[in-house]
């Protein structure tokens, strides 16, 4: 259940940057190849935020698709699992997006 560690890291990162002001909303980007499950993270966020300036804050998660570039056919394509295989049959594929795990912004009072 690494989502609890991730949630604690989110709370810590936000507290460092908000100087104790009440936080109403936290926006995250959690790419679909990041290995983090948004539902589990949302559950853990409430636990991690309890008793802090983030208590009761709404968590908004943007979960962008994975994107890859095939060096064989030079095409970009969407990937939602980690298998490196292009429709052209090439496995010479570079993941270019989808591993994001970022605090994008927060709304403070």
């Amino acid at each position, binding site marked *: 259940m690494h989502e609890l560690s991730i949630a604690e890291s989110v709370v810590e990162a936000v507290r460092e940057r908000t100087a104790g002001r009440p936080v109403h909303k936290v926006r995250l980007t959690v790419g679909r190849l990041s290995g983090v499950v948004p539902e589990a993270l949302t559950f853990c966020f409430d636990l991690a935020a309890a008793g802090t300036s983030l208590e009761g804050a709404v968590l908004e998660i943007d979960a962008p698709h994975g994107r890859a570039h095939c060096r064989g056919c030079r095409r970009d394509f969407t990937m939602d699992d980690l298998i*490196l295989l292009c429709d052209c049959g090439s496995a010479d594929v570079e993941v270019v997006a989808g591993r994001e795990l970022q605090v994008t912004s927060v709304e403070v009072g």
Partner: protein
Amino acid sequence: MCATCGCGTDEVRVTSVGGHDRHDHHRQHGHDHPHQHGHDHQHDHDDDHRSVEARTHTIELETSVLAKNDELAAHTRRWLTEHGISAVNLMSSPGAGKTSLLERTIRENRTGRSIAVIEGDQETLLDAERIRAAGAKAVQINTGAGCHLDATMVSSGLDRLQPEDDSVLFLENVGNLVCPALFDLGEARKVVVISVTEGDDKPLKYPHMFAAADLVLVNKTDLLPYVDFDLDRCEKDARSLNPGLEWVPVSVRNGVNLDAWYRWLGAV
């Protein structure tokens, strides 16, 4: 507790096994972790929003959730490099044979370097005691409810362990094929151990772990005649996630192909 990095958190326990119990912060990680400051773009909402929003404003952060872990891991990596220490993060499900592999690797040490181990388990000192009995320095980190090692725990473990310059350092992670894949510890290489009794479908079931690995050791090959484990299929699946990984089937029990493991280790 160190307020900067959180080392020595209430639940995590770091214990030396075998007479080198020190915690003098000799290996200072400096308490100078770079923090991300600046470029907070604050902009108030328009005044004509007369709801709660009117009294709130948005702060753009654009910061990695794991920035703190990753910065500390980078600091650890620099420190290890400066001291000529090669660190290997060893990961597997529980019971795949990580500790047995280390015991044999220590007893047959072909590296020409000293070996030290940071052991991660939720509870008990059992593994650190096994490593100590095999002849290496060991520190046990008990993560309590935690399911993986992180950079803070490893930094605390290194303070206690004081590994020799030019040594090989193993970070034996908590047995778990999911969570450890996400946390950089400052290691030079990641090794995943799977055993043939677990089934050959592990790479596709736990893709993040195999995507992150530099080397996969397939252990317990002496049991292949008794289980339905397709080595070729397993390797093909693992390479579909990570074409560059190295693949070494071994039997820690009877020693088959351990030379290949020792050669790999000699090149780290």
